[in-house]
C-alpha cells in the first residue's frame, strides 16, 4: 500500500505545465505583492500592528465584515425563495426565469449601480412617484448611504446565491417529499424537517460563495455609499494610488486572502468542498 502510493504517478507530468504556469504567473507575483506588507515602508510587522493600533483599520475591517454578512444573509434568503419557486415552476417558466437571472448576471456592476440610483435615488422613479402621490413630503433617503449599498450588493449577489441553491435542490429526489407527505407530515413539516435539512449543503455553498465574493466589493459602495461607506477594496486602492502606502495595502490584501483561505479550510473540515462546488461526488 505504502509502496504504491509513494511511486511517482506519471499523470502529474500532464498537469505539470498548468501547475508551473499558475505558479510562475499567478502565485509568484501575488507573493511578491504580499511580501510588501512586511517590507514596506520598513521591514517588520508594523503594518499588521495597525489592525490593533489604528481605529481606522479596525473599523474598516469590521464594517466590511458586517456589510458582507448582512448581504450574505439577505441574498441567500431571497435566493432560496427564488430557487424554490424555480424548482417547482413549469419547465417553460423555469427556463424564462433562468434567462432573466443570467441576463442580470451578465450586466456590469457599474450599470447596475447607476440603475439603482435612477430607481431609488433622490430624484429617482420611486421617490418621484411617492412625492407626486403625496405619500411622502421629502424624498426617502434610500441611496448614498449604507442601506443603498446593501441593496446594491444584495441584488448583485443574488445569482451567486441562486445558482448553487438551485443545483442542490434539483439533486434532491422529489419522491422524498411525497414520501414524507404520505407518512402524514403536513406541508410545513415536510419543508422544515425534510426539505430544508437536505438543502443545507446548498445553503452553505451559497453563503460561502456570496460572502467571499462580497469581500471584494468596490464599485457598489463607492457609488451608492455617497463616500461614507468605505470597504476594504476601496481603501486598498486609495492606499495604493493616493496616499502611496503600499505596505498597508498589501497588509489588507494579505488579510483578505488569508481569511478566505481560512474560511475554505474550516469548511472543508466539515464537508467536502468538491461536493459543494458540484464536483464528482454525485
Amino acid at each position: 500500500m505504502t509502496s504504491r502510493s509513494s511511486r511517482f504517478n506519471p499523470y502529474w507530468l500532464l498537469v505539470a505545465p498548468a501547475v508551473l504556469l499558475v505558479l510562475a504567473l499567478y502565485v509568484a507575483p501575488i507573493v511578491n505583492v504580499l511580501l510588501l506588507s512586511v517590507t514596506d515602508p520598513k521591514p517588520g510587522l508594523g503594518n499588521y500592528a495597525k489592525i490593533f493600533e489604528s481605529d481606522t483599520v479596525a473599523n474598516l475591517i469590521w464594517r466590511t465584515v458586517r456589510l458582507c454578512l448582512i448581504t450574505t444573509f439577505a441574498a441567500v434568503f431571497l435566493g432560496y425563495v427564488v430557487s424554490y419557486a424555480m424548482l417547482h415552476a413549469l419547465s417553460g417558466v423555469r427556463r424564462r426565469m433562468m434567462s432573466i437571472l443570467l441576463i442580470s448576471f451578465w450586466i456590469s456592476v457599474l450599470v447596475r449601480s447607476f440603475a439603482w440610483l435612477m430607481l431609488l435615488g433622490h430624484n429617482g422613479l420611486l421617490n418621484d412617484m411617492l412625492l407626486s402621490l403625496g405619500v411622502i413630503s421629502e424624498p426617502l433617503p434610500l441611496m448614498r448611504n449604507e442601506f443603498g449599498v446593501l441593496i446594491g450588493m444584495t441584488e448583485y449577489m443574488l445569482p451567486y446565491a441562486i445558482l448553487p441553491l438551485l443545483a442542490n435542490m434539483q439533486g434532491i429526489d422529489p419522491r422524498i417529499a411525497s414520501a414524507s407527505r404520505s407518512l402524514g407530515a403536513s406541508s410545513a413539516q415536510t419543508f422544515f424537517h425534510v426539505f430544508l435539512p437536505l438543502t443545507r449543503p446548498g445553503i452553505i455553498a451559497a453563503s460561502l460563495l456570496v460572502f467571499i465574493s462580497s469581500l471584494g466589493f468596490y464599485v457598489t459602495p463607492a457609488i451608492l455609499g455617497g463616500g461614507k461607506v468605505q470597504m476594504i477594496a476601496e481603501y486598498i486602492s486609495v492606499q495604493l494610488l493616493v496616499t502611496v502606502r503600499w505596505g498597508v495595502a498589501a497588509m489588507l490584501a494579505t488579510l483578505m486572502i488569508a481569511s478566505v483561505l481560512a474560511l475554505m479550510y474550516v469548511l472543508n473540515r466539515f464537508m467536502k468542498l468538491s461536493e459543494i462546488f458540484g464536483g464528482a461526488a454525485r
Partner: protein
Amino acid sequence: MKDNAFLNDLAREGAIAFKSGRLDRRSFLMLCGLAGVATLAVKAGDAEAAANEIVMWNWGGESEKCHGDAIGKPFTAKTGLPLKFDTSGPLQGKIKEMVDSGKVTADVCDADGFDAIALGKSGHLEAIDYNIVNKQQIKEGSAWEFGVGVIFYGYAFMYDTKAFGDNPPKGWADFYDTAKFPGKRSLYKWANGSIESALVADGVTKDKVYPCDVPRAIEKIKSIKADSLYWGSGSEAHDMIVNGEVVMGMIWQNRGKTIEERTNGRYKMVMNEAIAMPGAYIVPRGNPAGRDNVMKFIEQALQVESQLMILDCLGMTPSNPEAFAKIPEAMQPYAVNSAQNIDKVIFNDPVWWADNGGDAVNAFLEAIG
C-alpha cells in the same frame, strides 16, 4: 485598452530591437503577428519615433483634445515631435510603480503640485531644466525643482438659488452652517480642499491655513457629517448638485462654470475662499523622449497663447502671470488667477500636502466613514 497598450508596446519594442539588430527578422514578424499588427504599420521608421514623440499622461475626456490643440499643435510645429496621450490618470501610486518597474512609457504627467514635491523627494522624477523652461512664465511659488505649476484649478462651491436665492451663502463659514442654511452638502472625498474649507469655516484666516490643523478641520467636518455626502469624481459632484441631492456642493471651479451655464444660473458658484490648486507637469525619471524634448514641451505649455487656449477649452486658469491680464471678460468670474478672484482664493501649499497628505487623507476617510 490595457491590452492594446501592451500590444503596441510589444510591436514597438520589437521594431526597435529589429532595427538595432538584436532581433532577427523572423522573430520580429512573429511578434507582429502576435500583436495583430501588420508589419507595414510598424516599420522600423515608426519605431524610431517611439523616442521621438511626447507621450502625455492625463485624465482623458476633453483634456485630450484641449491639450492637443493648445500645446501639442504649436509644439509639433516647432519641434516636429508629435504629441500622444495616455488617458488613464497619473495618480501618485501609478507613477511610482511605473518608474520603479523601469518601464517608463510617459514623458509628462498632468498631476498635482503635491505629487511633484512628494515624487521628487522620493527620486521618481526628472529635475526641471530652467534653462529651457522660463521661470518668469510661472506663477511665483510654483516653479519647483521637480515640477512646474502649469495651470491652476480650484475647489469652490455651488448653491441652489431656489433654496437660498434671497440670502446667498458667501463663503465656507456659511457652507458649514447648517442652522442658517439647512440642507445637505457635498465635499471631495479624498480630503483636498475639504480640509482647508473646514479650517476657513472654523475661523482660521486665509494666511494661517497652512500648516493645516488637521484635528481641528476634522472636528468641523464631523459637525456636518450627518448632512453631507462625498464625491470622488467631477461627474459625481455634478450629479449631486443638479439632481438636488445637496443644496450646496463643493465643485471643481471649471465644472461649476459648466453647471451654471447648463442650468441657466439655477445653481450658482461661489469663488470666494476657493482653494486654488496648482496643476503640475512632472516628468517620470527616465522618460523615453529624453529630458530636453520634454522640457521644450513644458516650455510651450507656459506660453500665453497655449495658456489662454487651455483656459478656454478646459477652464483651467493660467499660471503665466503675463496671461492673467488677458483672461477674457466672460471667464473672469470663473478663473482662479483673474483680477477679481486672485485675492479672494486660498493658494494650496503643495509642500505641506506632500509631507502630510497621506495622514490627512486617512484621518479624513476615518472621520467620514
